[in-house]
């Protein structure tokens, strides 16, 4: 049944809703795979009443900006890695802790548990933005232009780009590297000119950003694992009819598996593509991960109390 529009008329046209969604990544990226599924579900479940309009490559701004825009209802929806969310809800910085998750399954279990729900609730409270579902951005793997990195001693003195984030800086200091905070827009040029030697990102992004033009080596060091979030402006969500709210929630839930599997598939394919582009890729079992983990213990000693030592242990052993 149709709801009455503000001027009292009842018509099909007034029920049509268009939602804009802003992606920081390009068409065909892992983010897009999830969003396309969400769009398909949304339009199917709503019989075409809800339309999703997808904008790529930061049309609406970077990750911090789009969240802020959703908070004030300037933008309906966005996807983002967890990086920017710590600005609102400090607990999200926990995903910057190294070696928090063993693998995808471990991460998914935590996202889908009450831990994921609590984080989302806190974020909704402070940012005025609703997290609809936890997708994945997987591990940020290390690429560099100097040598194959197998052991922590290989990164000594390496100028590693980190996000503007103290946990990441501390981690790379603990490794003996030279962490350099740098805006995302400067990373490619920085690598090209040697202002930085190395960086970490999902393989799919290393591919779409063409880092293979300026980097030779990739190490699948399972260090940082981040969720990737599908979000909607809370005021926008609240303005939808009950029926449409249900549809949005359902479509988001239906997209989760597809988005996660889509990421895993692209991540695997990227390995082959990057090899074809001439990169040397070290698999995880070819790396002395423990040598890195040992150094990273000091990071836990410093930062785990910030989130609660017991809580972090619970997440690590979930």
């Amino acid at each position, binding site marked *: 049944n149709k709801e009455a529009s503000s001027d009292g008329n009842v018509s099909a046209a007034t029920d049509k809703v268009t939602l804009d969604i802003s992606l920081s990544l390009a068409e065909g990226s892992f983010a897009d795979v999830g969003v396309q599924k969400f769009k398909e579900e949304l339009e199917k479940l709503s019989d075409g009443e809800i339309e999703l309009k997808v904008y790529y490559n930061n049309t609406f701004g970077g990750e911090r900006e789009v969240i802020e825009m959703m908070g004030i209802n300037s933008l309906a929806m966005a996807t983002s890695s967890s990086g920017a969310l710590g600005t609102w809800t400090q607990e999200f910085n926990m995903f910057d802790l190294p070696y928090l998750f063993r693998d995808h399954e471990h991460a998914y279990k935590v996202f889908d548990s009450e831990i994921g729900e609590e984080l989302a609730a806190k974020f909704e409270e402070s940012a005025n933005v609703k997290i609809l579902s936890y997708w994945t951005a997987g591990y940020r793997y290390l690429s560099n232009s100097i040598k194959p990195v197998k052991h922590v001693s290989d990164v000594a003195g390496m*100028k590693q780009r980190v996000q503007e984030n*103290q946990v990441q800086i501390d981690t790379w200091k603990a490794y003996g590297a030279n962490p350099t905070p740098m805006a995302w827009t400067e990373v490619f040029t920085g690598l090209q000119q040697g202002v930085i030697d190395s960086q970490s990102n999902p393989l799919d992004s290393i591919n779409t950003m063409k880092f293979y033009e300026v980097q030779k080596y990739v190490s699948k060091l399972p260090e940082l694992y981040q969720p990737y979030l599908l979000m909607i402006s809370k005021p926008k969500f609240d303005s939808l009819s009950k029926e449409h709210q249900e549809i949005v929630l359902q479509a988001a839930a239906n997209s989760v598996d597809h988005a996660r599997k889509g990421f895993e598939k692209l991540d695997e394919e990227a390995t082959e593509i990057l090899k074809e582009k001439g990169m040397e890729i070290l698999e995880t079992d070819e790396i002395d991960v423990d040598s890195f983990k040992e150094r990273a213990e000091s990071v836990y000693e410093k930062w785990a109390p910030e989130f609660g030592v017991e809580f972090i242990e619970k997440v690590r052993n979930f």
Partner: protein
Amino acid sequence: MKLVLTKYMAGVDSLNRVIGWILAIMISLMSIFIFWQVLARKVLGSSLSWSEEISRFLMVWVVLLGAAYALKKGELIAVELLPELLSEKGKKILLVFVSLFSLVFYIILTIYGWEITQSVKVQIAPGTGLSMFWVYLALPAGGILFILNTFYLIIEKFMKK
């Protein structure tokens, strides 16, 4: 009435002088922080996580306050075609219209700028730990200085006979 206006102008003059010095200090701090960042990385081999962010925030303040300051000095860039074609009296009338239209924008900047400072309060900048409130505050602060200086310019134009 005339006394009140003269006092208003003197007050705005002093305020702008102070703003001028604040601008000088802020642009110096920006230079120092970023140069320090270069030194830290190149010479000391360790990076700073706060320098880039705090300098960026200072720049936002410089731009908003500095633009309002420039307005008073008549230095904001405009298409100065129409005023050239008008008589003195016509110029005065035009100034009133230009000021009224501009005021609408300055008021938007002030009111909605203030509203947004409220909604970003909870955001904590990652590098400095500063609440984004203090950064966005540049919008309403600049907006108010714009408004004060706009009235200053109108009064100045009409008092000068």
